[in-house]
């Protein structure tokens, strides 16, 4: 029997997403303790396999696994046989032979984690970002972060709110949608939770079929600011060809960057998120990045709890006993 995977937000659905967010709330509490470790995944082995460089996602996943007491194998592609011409399939088979329970994969090719899930017999595959396709744990932690902020505004326990706080909310995702895996995961997550999603970018940075995604599509950020409850700012993916899709960074910045002036146009209580890494002065102004309404550092902090929840749910099936019995 194949183990469950997290390859796309679509693997979860609304209830699945809410479950991850709620379990993550419990782990966030664990993180506030002095002893941050729980034995939930003791004896389990988790491997990270990053074919693309990443600092925050890899560290976040490895920290999450360690806090759950899992053993972590960290395969660095630079020093592995991949550089010697070994195929993805053989690399995966090698890791499988080491007896692991889950593998966390980042790859520059869309679909590589899904292919990996077909090639591996009894290992959970977690997509840590594949090409332009998806980055589901990022979509989850972004949803977790904004739910927490909105719950805080109302002084309620986020766990008690389920998906309620997303109902009727207007979420604008702005920037290089076409080349962004975060855009796809966020769109799927926010839509599943009941929010209205607006994609905002120049025509050349929007996937051609995104008008059929059940979202609004616009090229006018300024027109959205007064009604947005959340603006999710995305980087221009220069390394994936995003730079060629606009005449200049100056022109992109003029119409699609979150500037101080645009912060001023937001309605009260609106938030800004950014999945990082930020390029200050291009898609986000320094003043915006450092504004308390911008949740970027909270996102990084929450990444660990959300990834703990993902690992925990995939590897234990979600029985709460082990979690509650965690170390104090």
């Amino acid at each position, binding site marked *: 029997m194949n183990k469950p995977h997290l390859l796309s937000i679509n693997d979860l659905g609304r209830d699945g997403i809410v479950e991850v967010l709620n379990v993550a709330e419990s782990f966030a509490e664990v993180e506030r303790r002095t002893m941050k470790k729980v034995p939930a995944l003791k004896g389990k082995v988790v491997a990270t396999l990053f074919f693309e460089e990443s600092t925050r996602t890899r560290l976040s996943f490895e920290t999450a696994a360690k806090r759950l007491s899992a053993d972590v194998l960290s395969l660095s592609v630079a020093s592995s046989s991949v550089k010697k011409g070994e195929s993805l399939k053989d690399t995966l088979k090698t890791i499988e032979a080491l007896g692991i329970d889950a593998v966390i994969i980042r790859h520059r090719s869309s*679909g590589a984690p899904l292919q990996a899930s077909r090639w591996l017999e009894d290992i959970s595959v977690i997509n840590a970002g594949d090409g332009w396709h998806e980055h589901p744990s990022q979509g989850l932690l972004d949803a977790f972060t904004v739910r927490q902020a909105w719950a805080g505004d109302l002084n309620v326990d986020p766990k008690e709110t389920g998906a309620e706080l997303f109902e009727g909310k207007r979420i604008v995702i702005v920037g290089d949608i076409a080349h962004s895996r975060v855009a796809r995961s966020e769109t799927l997550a926010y839509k599943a939770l009941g929010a209205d999603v607006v994609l905002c970018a120049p025509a050349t940075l929007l996937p051609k079929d995104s008008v059929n995604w059940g979202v609004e599509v616009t090229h006018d950020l300024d027109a959205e600011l007064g009604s947005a409850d959340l603006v999710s700012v995305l980087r221009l993916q220069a390394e994936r060809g995003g730079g060629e899709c606009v005449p200049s960074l100056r022109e992109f910045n003029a119409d699609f960057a979150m500037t101080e002036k645009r912060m001023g146009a937001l309605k009260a209580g609106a938030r800004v998120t950014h999945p990082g890494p930020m390029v200050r002065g291009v898609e986000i102004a320094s003043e915006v990045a450092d504004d308390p309404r911008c949740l970027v550092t909270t996102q990084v902090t929450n990444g660990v709890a959300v990834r703990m929840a993902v690992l925990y749910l995939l590897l234990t099936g979600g029985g709460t006993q082990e979690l509650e019995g965690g170390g104090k």
Partner: protein
Amino acid sequence: MTIIQTARYDMAPDTIAIVGGVVLTEEGLVRADLVIEHGLITALGTDVVLPEGATVLEAKDCIVGPGFVDLHTHLREPGKEQAETIATGARAAALGGYTAVVAMPNTDPVLDSAFVVRAVLDLGAVSTCEVAVAGAITVGRKGESLAPIAELAKLGVQLFTDDGSGVQHGGVARRALDYCRGLGVTYAEHCEDNAIAAGGVVHEGEWSAKLGLPGQPASAEEAMVARDLLLAGELGARLHLLHLSTSGSVELVRQAKHAGINVTAEAAPHHFTLTDAALESYDAVFKVNPPLRPEHHVQAIIDGFADGTIDAVATDHAPHTPETKDLPFDEAPPGMLGLETAFSLTFERLVLGAKMSIEQLFAVMSMNPARIAGLDAASSRPYGHTPHGKPVAVGNVANLVVIDPEATWTVEGSSLASLAANTPYEGRTMHGAIRHTVLRGEPVVLEGKATR
């Protein structure tokens, strides 16, 4: 008929008979038996006397017609013999009912010199299917300077293409079309404007957007179709368009034919049986160039066959080893096997599904491609071939296929004759099967099995 005396006929038994079938003759489909002696059809009718000692091929409930001709086969030799050789590709062709194939030039080395072309023709001459060659248009298929087209034409090469990629430079394309016109040979284009395609590995649309795979728009193909039609019309040159896959391409060709432009077109079975929804699995076995398209394009291809806009079914048979297809989607090479599944797919989708007649099936799989490739008459060139794509008649060389429209079979990549196994139809049950294939009087396929 001096050609019949060559050593090529050594493998043929002296006399064979095909009995019990319905035969596609100049008068249409008629119930008839036929006798073949020394490679030639010598008797045809319901009252023929079977010579003593004849090898008898049973054809009850089957249709006997001219062997199929594939305009678009990647035999991979020289260069990628782990994926296919001329011998294994020719065996796959015979099992698919083909008596002739046109080998594409994107080998290593490229088929852009007489020396390499001769080597391919030599190996083809002893295989289970006649192998014609499509020569490269430009040296190394680089799209820059013209290949020795006249020299290759003297070896009997009739089609020239840089298949695998289109000729990007309009000036080079125009010069090549003009040069081919002077030689009476045909310029064939792989229509893909690389600048518009922008590195897309799938069709740009719903699935490229969902899957986050770089897409190439239909216009990448259509822009080059339009360019070449204009050039061919202006020059009065003969143009053949390879593996058309979009509704816009079909419409452009339809209009060009009405306008009297000397153009023919082919389409591949995967472009009228599969859509880009198959990409959901990210399985690179579905990666092909031109890419799989949405349903309305598929329907346009079928309509193009129905009204004669598209002249030929061509397989674009493209074997790839498992290790190259077991790669991330964007890294894997495009291409899929086609020779052994083409007939069943055409029969299912165009005859059973779109009400084409059996005669039309033979037109698009045998007569038309034979004419386009110049294989419909015997060649007197040094590397000559026998005539293909002719209705069955006394006096013709016996290049025949016997199809069983009632038979069903299940595709299994590892059981196909190709060295590679990259069929996108794995596990699919097919309707209609090849029962026998006869090459110059030799039964190279008997009861669905290759004889050598």
